[in-house]
């Protein structure tokens, strides 16, 4: 049986493989399978990792990529995702596929991405001199298990099936006639396919394990191979030491990139666009009071909406043509831990981006008042949520109190409006903050169904803020 030489990259010949190695037989079988399918050579990506198996793509006149050890499946995933029309076939070794690359095998199988993996399993790391691999049979001798291998061997096919591969088959280099058919079926499966082929390594494995000549290993493969049909009626004890060959799994399922494409089609149909919020600059510069640097610290606990309040305040100031920097910090909990949202406003470039001595502190919990009130600048302002905070007087700092959370609960029946009420009060208190700018910023950040509620909360806050100022002035 000769093969079509046009599929070979003869410039890379002679091959590196030892006499008696099974890898040439597998290479030939793969070329036959591809030839039978009649594919254009430009349409095929042949991908490998590191080791004796990894030279396979070099000898084939396809788009040939030898990647890093164990990572071929990840490279192939990127290739196939980006060019789904291409046929991607991988040639991996046993250590390559099941040891260093084991994790990638699991996840490619789980996704059912349309790759065909041919595992050239020679029970050994051949290129590095015959060390044991995850498939080295128990008690075998290798250059790192000279006293016999105490590890148990891994069944790559069983792992692939468990992880979700939709086509899995096993054969041996002895079964040269059966191989192209199995590879052909694996390639034809639109999904993750794995074909394990036991490949004799007379140099690294045979010589250490009682096989005097390469041919002895082929005889062994003939003798211990059992077809999957026959194996069905055999007991576990009878199957010990046997190699079960044939198709072990063939249950096509929806392919990963097809699912991705379906998801994209759905998103585009629904017009689900998640572009970032655009801010109009300059519409509300009416009260253009120069600001050299003004620092806010909004503090409380996670879930009070302080980060959103900080973002809204910043966006309002950008509408007023100021520069703004926002920082946030919170504990590891998503809700309930301490939360702090800092805003710096300036007409100039804001270099140092952190708030150390705020001009304005919003304290929505007693803890945050205790922690931050002493850092407020002389001449600064503290606004306390008196629902939670009983402030001590701070010298040189003006302190305003309002039951923000209580008001949110009682007036609006929604404690989540507290941050917007607070923004309103701040707007009323501070002459450089434009009510229109903050209102616009609030409305562009609030979902449609909550706009009316938050509008009312904001208006109430503004009125209360102005009253607080008036009271002080009196």
């Amino acid at each position, binding site marked *: 049986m000769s093969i079509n030489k046009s599929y070979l990259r003869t410039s890379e010949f002679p091959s590196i493989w030892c006499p008696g190695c099974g890898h040439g037989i597998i290479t030939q079988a793969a070329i036959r399978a591809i030839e039978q399918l009649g594919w254009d050579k*430009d349409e095929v990506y042949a991908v490998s990792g590191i080791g004796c198996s990894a030279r396979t793509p070099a000898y084939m006149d396809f788009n*040939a990529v030898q990647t890093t050890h164990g990572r071929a*499946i990840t490279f192939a995933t*990127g290739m196939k*995702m980006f060019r789904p029309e291409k046929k991607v076939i991988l040639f991996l070794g046993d250590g390559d596929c099941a040891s260093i690359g084991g*994790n990638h095998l699991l996840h490619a199988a789980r996704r059912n991405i349309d790759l065909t993996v041919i595992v050239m399993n020679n029970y050994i790391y051949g290129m590095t001199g015959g060390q044991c691999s995850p498939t080295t049979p128990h008690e075998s001798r290798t250059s790192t298990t000279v006293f016999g291998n105490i590890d148990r061997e891994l069944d790559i096919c069983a792992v692939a099936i468990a992880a979700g591969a939709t086509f899995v088959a096993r054969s041996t280099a002895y079964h040269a006639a059966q191989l192209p058919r199995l590879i052909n079926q694996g390639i034809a499966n639109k999904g993750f396919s794995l074909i394990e082929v036991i490949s004799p390594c007379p140099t690294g494995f045979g010589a250490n394990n009682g096989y005097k000549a390469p041919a002895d290993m082929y005889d062994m493969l003939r003798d211990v191979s059992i077809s999957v049909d026959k194996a069905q009626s055999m007991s576990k004890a009878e199957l010990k030491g046997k190699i079960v060959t044939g198709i072990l799994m063939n249950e096509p399922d929806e392919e990963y990139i097809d699912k*991705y494409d379906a998801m994209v089609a759905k998103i585009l149909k629904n017009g689900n666009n998640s572009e970032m919020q*655009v801010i109009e600059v300059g519409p509300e510069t009416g009260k253009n009071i120069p600001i050299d640097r003004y620092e806010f610290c909004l503090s409380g606990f996670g879930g009070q909406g302080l980060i959103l309040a900080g*973002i809204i305040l910043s966006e309002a100031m950008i509408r007023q043509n100021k520069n703004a920097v926002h920082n946030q910090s919170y504990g590891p909990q998503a809700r309930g831990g301490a939360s702090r949202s800092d805003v710096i406003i300036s007409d100039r470039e804001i270099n140092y*981006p952190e708030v150390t001595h705020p001009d304005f502190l919003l304290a929505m919990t007693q803890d945050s008042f205790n922690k931050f009130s002493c850092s407020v600048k002389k001449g600064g302002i503290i606004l306390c949520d008196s629902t939670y905070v009983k402030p001590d007087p701070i010298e040189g700092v003006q302190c305003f109190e309002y039951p923000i959370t209580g008001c949110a609960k009682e007036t609006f029946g929604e404690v989540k409006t507290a941050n917007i009420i607070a923004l309103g009060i701040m707007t009323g208190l501070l002459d450089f903050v434009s009510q229109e700018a903050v209102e616009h910023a609030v409305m562009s950040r609030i979902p449609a169904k909550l706009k009316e509620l938050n509008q009312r909360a904001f208006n109430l806050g503004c009125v209360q803020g102005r009253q607080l100022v008036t009271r002080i002035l009196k």
Partner: protein
Amino acid sequence: MNRRPKVLFLQGNEACAEGALAAGVNFFAGYPITPATEIAEVLSRRIPQNGGKFIQMEDELACMGAVVGASLSGAKSMTATSGPGFTLVQENLGYAAISEVPCVIVAVQRGGPSTGLPTLSAQADVMQARWGTHGDHPVIVLCPSSVSETFHLTIRCFNLAEAYRVPVILLTDAIVGHMREKVEIPDCEDIVLVNRKKPDKNVKGYLPYAPDADGVPPMANLGDGYRYYTSGCVHDETGSPKMSDPTVARNLINRLHSKISQNRDKIVFCEERYTSNAKTVVIAYGSVARPAIAAVEQARNLGLKVGLFRPITLWPSPDEEILKATESADTIIIPEMNLGQYAGEVARIFGASGKSIKIININETGSELFTPDQILGCIREVYES
């Protein structure tokens, strides 16, 4: 023509994602990690709508493998990670370097080593970015100081990767990554994009690793008719591994570096303030440049002759630029959030030049950004001594 820029208020990580989209990213592979995750989150929503591919891989090794595979197939591809994930990226980053695969890696720095300070900032990966993978490999590293700059440098990373067929790293940090600032996004027609050079139509004679005069070989996408063999091995111009001839290895490794050094003027960017007559120059990069600028401004107001040098390109090092910016200086102050990773590089630059200069390195490993006062204090000490 009315092409006003769009104004957005974004986190640094969001600006990075926006920059990648503006640069035409059409493949992203990611894995969750603080403080870089927002980049993957934004792109998981936006890339599918733009006709590209997003995938969450099983780990960062896999991310980088997928990024290289997609780029070989023609994608503008990227991943984003932080400290420990950046370490896993390094393996296949080396592959991208030797087989000359354009790609962008974003590393949002956090405190290390190991899990370190997962949510807090550091500049701990300056050397990992340069030498993280084994072997003498070329790499370009850009380092933004603001959210707006993160947007623009992400685009530049893609352009440099495509122009020089090299992995390019955007080295940001948790402070810049998580802070929000105003970003002006230009109309797409005002953004200059660079795409990799394609080979001519001569499919048969294509030598995938034969360079043009600029040191960069034209790149055929896999599957476009130029069937070649590529690997992580030292190779000749055909791509075929050649281990037996030492000159092949020497020529390759030399060319991988000279394609960067011969084009350095198009790769090295920096910012200078008041350096022309400065007696003391503060060298700072990334988030630390911000309090450094504030301190230098204050020092100037006090009449002290202090300048600021900010390397935007960390690697390759701006040797000539640093020497020029410090011509009138006798002291350099380098504040950095590590134990002197860049100060060592600056010392190398002066050692090689033969010029003697005093280098004061101030370090922070507890994640707190220097205050302008700390840096100003150091400047005053220099003046008072």
